[in-house]
């Protein structure tokens, strides 16, 4: 180390503690976004190519087969229009979940940088909030790209369809918050990855009325959809996009379910983050 002179004022003069106590989550999110920017080209590539592949293969390819056998369409619209809100929601939710799951494993286990954050004025609660916030920023980017692709392919249309974006982000926030808590609670990373990958994400994707109406499935499988935030987001998305029928009570129930999931998730995420950091 060299002996270069360091001018010193001292932290008591330098640091505006009340400001930091209020903005801690933003600083964490800023750091996370800085990490994401290191991967900006692969993130952008995924955000562009993922919807392209899905829309070309399933929306248009399978859609052509479905439409040819069902002249009235699915739920009164083309298969692509039926599928579009579900694909948007699933991409957004999975993107947000990945973006909270991996930083949590990394921060607690792989390079332990949450412990470095926790040695600063940042609180455990703010670290959890910051990770969730950065995950939603990434999800917003992915959602905007996907929405753009849906517009180009004709899956959505009209100004009212812009409401799909906040509704989808709301759904992503609810599930990502729950996953954030789960990731902090389960310290065995292999167990966590298996639970999330095999027991949560894949079943939710397949049994949430994404590719066909949930009502067309056997009753005993429909409950998976009722539990899934993806089904709730898909139902709301279809209502926004092409006027899929939902009663007022049903609409309230969808938002209430996602809202409660968000609040429970955030509560437990903060709890388990703090618990692990101060162990």
């Amino acid at each position, binding site marked *: *180390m060299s002996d270069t002179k*360091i001018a010193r004022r001292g932290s008591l003069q330098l640091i505006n503690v009340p400001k*930091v*106590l209020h903005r801690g989550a933003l*600083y*964490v999110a800023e750091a996370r976004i800085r990490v994401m920017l*290191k991967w900006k080209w692969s993130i952008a590539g995924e955000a562009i190519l993922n919807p392209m592949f899905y829309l070309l293969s399933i929306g248009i390819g399978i859609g052509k087969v479905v439409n040819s056998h069902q002249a009235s369409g699915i739920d009164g619209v083309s298969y692509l229009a039926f599928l579009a809100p579900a694909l948007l929601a699933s991409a957004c939710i999975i993107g947000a979940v990945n973006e909270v799951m991996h930083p949590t494993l990394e921060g607690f286990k792989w*390079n332990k940088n949450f*412990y470095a954050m926790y040695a600063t*004025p940042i609180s455990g609660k703010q670290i959890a909030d910051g990770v969730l916030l950065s995950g939603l920023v990434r999800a917003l980017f992915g959602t905007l790209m996907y929405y753009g692709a849906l517009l180009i392919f004709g899956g959505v249309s009209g100004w009212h369809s812009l409401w799909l974006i906040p509704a989808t982000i709301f759904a992503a926030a609810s599930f990502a918050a729950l996953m954030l808590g789960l990731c902090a609670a389960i310290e065995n990373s292999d167990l966590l990855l298996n639970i999330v990958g095999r027991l949560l994400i894949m079943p939710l994707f397949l049994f949430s009325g994404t590719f066909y109406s949930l009502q067309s499935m056997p009753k005993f499988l429909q409950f998976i959809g009722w539990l899934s935030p993806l089904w709730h987001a898909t139902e709301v998305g279809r209502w926004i996009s092409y006027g899929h029928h939902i009663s007022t009570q049903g609409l309230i129930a969808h938002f209430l379910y996602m809202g409660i999931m968000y609040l429970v998730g955030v509560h437990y995420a903060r709890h388990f983050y703090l618990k692990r950091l101060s162990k």
Partner: protein
Amino acid sequence: MMSTLWRMSAMEKSESSPASPASPAGTIGEPLIIAKGLRKEYGEFTAVDGIDFHVNRGESFGFLGPNGAGKSTTMRIIAATLTRTSGEITILGKDPEKRGPEIRAHLGVVPQQDNLDSSLTVEDNLYVYGRYFGLTKKFIRAKIEELLTFAQLEEKRGVKVEALSGGMKRRLTIARALVSEPEILMLDEPTTGLDPQARHILWDRLFRLKEQGVTLLITTHYMDEAEQLCDRLIVMDKGRIMAEDSPAGLIKTYSTKEVLEVRFGADRNDLYAEKLRSMCDRIEVLPDRVLMYSDDCETLLHNVVSQGMQPTTSLVRRSSLEDVFLRLTGRTLVE
């Protein structure tokens, strides 16, 4: 008793009147950290067993002891990242369990194991850490230049941390802890992994920080480091404080001026022990050598030889903190 009363009085005073913005630097010598009956238990295991200590502003204070002595646990309680089981502690006049983030705003922490963000570059690690303290981008950019020079990492500024050597990571971790110009710099085994030259330069940098009024808290199991860096230290073992004083004071109290180390061979050290014991103040029989304590070890060595005992090797050295620890615990620090 007087000492306890003084500490309690200081604790109450500092709790009720935290450092005033009007006098941000505080007064050199005032107690910044006060612990009384500090205890930490993990189930049946007691990591810190009711210890009392205080650290004054501008002081370089050390925790010396072997692995598992409770040093790092104590450091984490001071760093407001670990809750205590019982006892009292204030840092900068605040209770870490009630006002942890406010305390951490003025601490610089160098953990035992580096926890840098391996996906970021050297420069970005310093930048994001500065942002956690709410520092302005302009300030951090200027500070980064100073710290990169300080840590001799100018050439590595754009390199990802995962590509750095262990020593470079250590230097970056220390530089990172200085980005917020902390009032208290906490270093947990700071020179582990550094080469001898980097170690001495780090000691020099720490001296300079101390001259600028920074309070240093250091845990180490290196005797020379403790002697070089600490104004005052506590010797810990099994969660308890065995002794507290300056390095020189501890050596004066618990050892002699000099030590004679003699080796007769592993199976013969015990044979000579009784005879050697009668020739000096105290002896310690270790597996590979016998330590003889006296204020005049040259004469002692002469006497040993003149009594017909021919050690295979002999060494006269001054007493160190290792001898203090041996005296206090009956064990060496590296056991």
